[in-house]
């Protein structure tokens, strides 16, 4: 593999880091505009109720109030998948936090007082917060306006191969149920949106959303605006973890308020609203069976899945797309089947949170790999390696595996954790090792017609190279990676490159930041645009140096002719020579990259990503069986990143993801009581602290993907996928009981240890329990 790069592969601190750590970054909430009003939302306190009346007269009369809106005085159309949602709820509220009315006022105190003056009459309706209950005949109907059965919003059904035949051939079949909780992305920056119209009716929205072009279209569709006259500006994002991908009810509300008030408005979520009024990671319940031959060859996997959607279809309804990939395509499985129901409940609804269905699916699939290994009397690593995906494989869903370092990842963490010497041998100290591995899209994900991203480069007379990318920076480090790709491709110093990507009027189209796609897709677009700029540069230099352009090279900003030490030219000079003359021209190039992938067909078959990322973790835990407390002592991570454009930020992404995963595994949960989150704050929501983070050892496995920019593949989500599964496996190794739901909180684990329970899903009557080996 090439290693003589000038910039790529170097450890470069994130370019935005100095401003962020010194508090200079200006986030949306820091912006001050003249005449800016403060907006606030009146939310439903009930999980399910009919709205009988909304009286806003007292609020409207309050001095300092500029607009009060509710479903009765605005024009809005439904939004969301299946158009099951409206910004302001009209007839019915379906979860606590549902938006019923909103105000814009001179300041926050007045806005709050106005909210208090709005009176809403509700007729309470029976609510259901458990998807299994919601499926029962006679359960409350959550969307009686939709033509659906049993609160099932969507079904995802996939089948390949002859399941009965695979079962017959299996020497061992393990089965069990595995559940995950409602969790939150909980970024430091809460959602903020600023909206204002100019005198001509053109709309500008300032928001840390990261699918800006889709956002613009959805605003227009729902509110009847001309989307050519909407500009979305994206200030620096204070973290998203997927939470800011989606357009949400409050985005429309801010625009409607700006329209009604004829003034710009700012709507900023409080921390409590961030938990109750913005999207979460939805719980998914798996009943899984895996069968294998006596030699460990996997023969089938069969999942029956219930996804607890919450009240409406946001992105979370589509997490099954990713969960399905894991069930059918993690390891060579062959025969596989998945039947999933996405079920409405009267709760906050699921969005797209980092990992997007994969932590939940991997928790089931990878625990079952270790259960299967135990039943077969095999080492779980041997079982994994035997069935590992390999380059050239095509999975049952049509995923074409090209670069694939899965085996190397597994072997690395096995060696580094001293797995062979220690797994299964530390029971006396209540210590254990557990492993897990993943497959995740690593080269975009074709969910829309296009999975493309545009890029433009220009070089000005100072030699400054501007990359204008369609993508967005969320803190994940893409800006730095893109700058490095441009610097490497052009052969100029990194300091000369700037990246802008914050304005839909300026930047070329992009799907948005999701699916770990930015370095791959936006990186390829940047590389292509920069390569064109390089050609232009060398063309200009060729005239000056009087040599053919193809004989020239450029590195560190110096254009030279190999073998002729005196024939050199600084690249800035080449730019100026073209510019400062009659008949001048500048260097300005563009490119659009759409990966060579397919949208899944109606049977969910299609190669949706241009490459796939793989990784493996081993986790070591120590359990205190008498209190149920789990301490994570160490985490070894190996990830196939294709090529680490910036190893420092690859490690950062993996470590940050792993710590988030430890939180999912052990402490993060939004328990629901009577349809409410009783504790929507960061003190009670169990995000891990530095004290909960284990020492993490990261190995980057470089497989140089054929299509990735310089061989890179996506790594934004990989780190978070594995800890729930690996920690559950480690706990099983330490104390001999298998956690079948997470978070593995102390009281749950202690009860499992005491009762020796092997299946731990409460209230799931139709799910089969117990491991049954034949």
């Amino acid at each position, binding site marked *: 593999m090439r290693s003589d790069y000038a910039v790529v592969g170097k450890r470069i601190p994130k370019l935005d880091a100095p401003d962020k750590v010194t508090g200079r970054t200006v986030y949306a909430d820091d912006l001050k505009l003249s005449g800016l009003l403060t907006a606030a939302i009146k939310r439903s306190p009930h999980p399910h109720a009919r709205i009988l009346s909304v009286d806003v007269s007292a609020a409207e009369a309050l001095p300092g109030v500029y607009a009060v809106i509710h479903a009765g005085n605005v024009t809005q159309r439904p939004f969301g998948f299946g158009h099951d949602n409206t910004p302001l709820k009209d007839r019915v509220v379906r979860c606590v936090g549902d938006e019923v009315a909103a105000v814009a006022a001179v300041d926050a105190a007045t806005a709050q007082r106005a909210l208090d003056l709005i009176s809403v009459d509700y007729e309470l309706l029976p609510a259901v917060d458990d998807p299994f209950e919601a499926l029962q005949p006679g359960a409350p109907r959550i969307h009686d306006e939709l033509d659906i059965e049993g609160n099932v919003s969507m079904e995802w059904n996939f089948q390949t191969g002859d399941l009965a035949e695979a079962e017959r051939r299996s020497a061992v079949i393990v089965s069990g149920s595995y559940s995950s909780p409602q969790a939150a992305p909980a970024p430091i920056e809460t959602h903020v949106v600023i909206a204002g119209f100019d005198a001509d009716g053109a709309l500008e929205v300032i928001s840390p959303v990261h699918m800006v072009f889709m956002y613009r279209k959805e605003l227009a569709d729902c509110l009847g605006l001309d989307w050519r006259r909407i500009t979305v500006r994206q200030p620096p994002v204070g973290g998203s973890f997927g939470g800011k991908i989606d357009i949400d009810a409050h985005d429309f509300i801010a625009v409607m308020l700006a329209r009604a008030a004829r003034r710009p408005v700012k709507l900023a979520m409080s921390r409590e609203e961030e938990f109750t009024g913005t999207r979460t990671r939805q719980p998914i319940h798996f009943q899984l069976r895996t069968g294998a031959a006596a030699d460990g060859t996997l023969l089938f996997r069969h999942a029956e899945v219930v996804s607890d959607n919450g009240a409406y279809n946001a992105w979370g309804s589509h997490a099954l797309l990713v969960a399905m990939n894991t069930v059918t395509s993690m390891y060579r499985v062959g025969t596989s089947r998945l039947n999933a129901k996405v079920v409405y409940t009267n709760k906050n609804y699921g969005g797209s949170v980092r990992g997007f269905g994969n932590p939940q699916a991997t928790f089931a699939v990878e625990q079952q790999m270790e259960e299967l290994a135990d039943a077969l009397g095999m080492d779980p690593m041997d079982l994994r390696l035997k069935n590992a995906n390999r380059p050239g494989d095509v999975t049952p869903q049509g995923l074409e595996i090209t670069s694939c370092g899965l085996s190397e990842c597994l072997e690395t963490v096995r060696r580094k954790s001293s797995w062979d010497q*220690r797994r299964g041998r530390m029971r006396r100290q209540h210590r254990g090792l557990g492993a897990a591995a993943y497959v995740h899209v690593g080269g975009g994900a074709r969910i829309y017609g296009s999975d493309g991203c545009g890029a433009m480069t220009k070089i000005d007379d100072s030699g400054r190279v501007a990359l204008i990318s369609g993508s967005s920076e969320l803190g994940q480090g893409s800006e730095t990676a893109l700058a490095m790709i441009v610097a490497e491709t052009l052969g100029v110093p990194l300091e000369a490159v700037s990246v802008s990507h914050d304005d839909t009027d300026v930047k070329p189209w992009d799907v948005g930041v999701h699916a770990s796609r930015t370095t791959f897709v936006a990186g390829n677009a940047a590389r292509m645009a920069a390569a064109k700029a390089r050609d232009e540069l060398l063309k200009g230099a060729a005239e000056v140096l009087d040599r053919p352009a193809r004989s020239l090279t450029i590195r560190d900003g110096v254009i030279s002719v190999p073998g002729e030490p005196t024939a050199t030219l600084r690249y800035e000079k080449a730019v100026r020579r073209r510019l400062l003359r009659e008949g001048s021209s500048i260097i300005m190039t563009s490119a659009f990259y759409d990966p060579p992938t397919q949208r899944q067909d109606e049977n969910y078959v299609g190669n949706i990503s241009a490459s796939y990322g793989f990784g493996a973790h081993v986790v070591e835990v120590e359990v205190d069986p*008498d209190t149920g407390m789990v301490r994570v002592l160490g985490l070894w991570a190996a990830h196939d990143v294709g090529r680490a454009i910036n190893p420092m930020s690859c490690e950062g992404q993996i470590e940050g993801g792993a710590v988030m995963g430890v939180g999912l595994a052990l402490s993060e949960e939004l328990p629901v009581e009577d349809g409410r989150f009783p504790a929507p704050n960061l003190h009670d929501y169990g995000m891990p602290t530095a004290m909960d983070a284990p020492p993490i050892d990261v190995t980057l496995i470089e497989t140089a993907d054929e299509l990735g920019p310089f061989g890179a593949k996506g790594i934004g989500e990989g780190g978070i996928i594995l800890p729930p599964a690996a920690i559950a496996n480690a706990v099983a190794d330490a104390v001999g009981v298998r956690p079948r739901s997470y978070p593995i909180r102390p009281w749950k684990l202690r009860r499992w240890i005491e009762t020796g329970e092997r299946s731990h899903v409460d209230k799931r009557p139709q799910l089969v329990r117990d491991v049954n080996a034949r």
Partner: protein
Amino acid sequence: MTSYYRPGSASEAVAILAANPGAMVIAGGTDLVIDRRLGRADPRAPLVDVTGINELRGVRWDGDELHLGATATISAIESDPAVIVRTSALAEAARVLGSVQIRNMATLGGNLCTASPAAEMVPPLMVHDAVAAIRGPAGERRQAVADVVTGPRTTILASGEILTNVRLRAPALSGSCYLRQTVRWAMDLAGVGVAAWVLTDGTGREAAVQEARVALGAVAPTAVLVPGLESLLAGAPPTTERLGAVSAAASAACEPISDTRGTAEHRRHVAGVLAARALSIAHARAAGLWSGGLAPVNGRASAVTSSGERA
């Protein structure tokens, strides 16, 4: 707008409180600011900041006696070398309270007067038999800390009274310990917090218990002392069997609720587990057998390193 006073003496503070009915005492503000924001306390009530009062400050030893000013910060308690050795339970409770930033602001008086069932410092003060000094318009009165908190968010302080200090004695051959169970390992309120204190008749493994106290936090509306320990422990070293009886007594003393930090059943069980562990560590300290510094937060001996390979 809120009026804000910063008196320089306790008597001035008492006078300001008397002149401003409804005024609230603020120390570090780590509870009160949140309560005011959430509307659990009146956000417009006048504030009387007691951190400027010299006589309320400091961690001071006078022979056997420890004098803790009401505004002594949790970090000052955590880092006092004699507190760590002689009243270890206080140091062990202090070092798990909140985060470094919180501990630098939070005060002992605030922790006691906020009267949370899970307040970290209360069980250690109770097992050390601490006495609180309370100043009001009628002068100063003293009250056992065990009697100061009367229920969730209520104390015996009348409006207009302030806590000025807390005092306790740490005699030779005594030792204490505070342990807790949490969901995460820092920045979490106790699911269960247990303090134990032991006075022995000598040193060494066979040292007999003369007096012992165990107090439980987060398992009842207020922290509670486990009754009947003398008869279970006095006159002998804490054998496994005796510790088992302590566990049972501790579990029996709980009246827990279920919430996001634990089920009632689990809290009852863990109170017993941690009581035995804390008591045995306190005994080891009293009997001169302990050399380990502060105990692991859940009292379970554990090497927090792993024998895997690291880059």
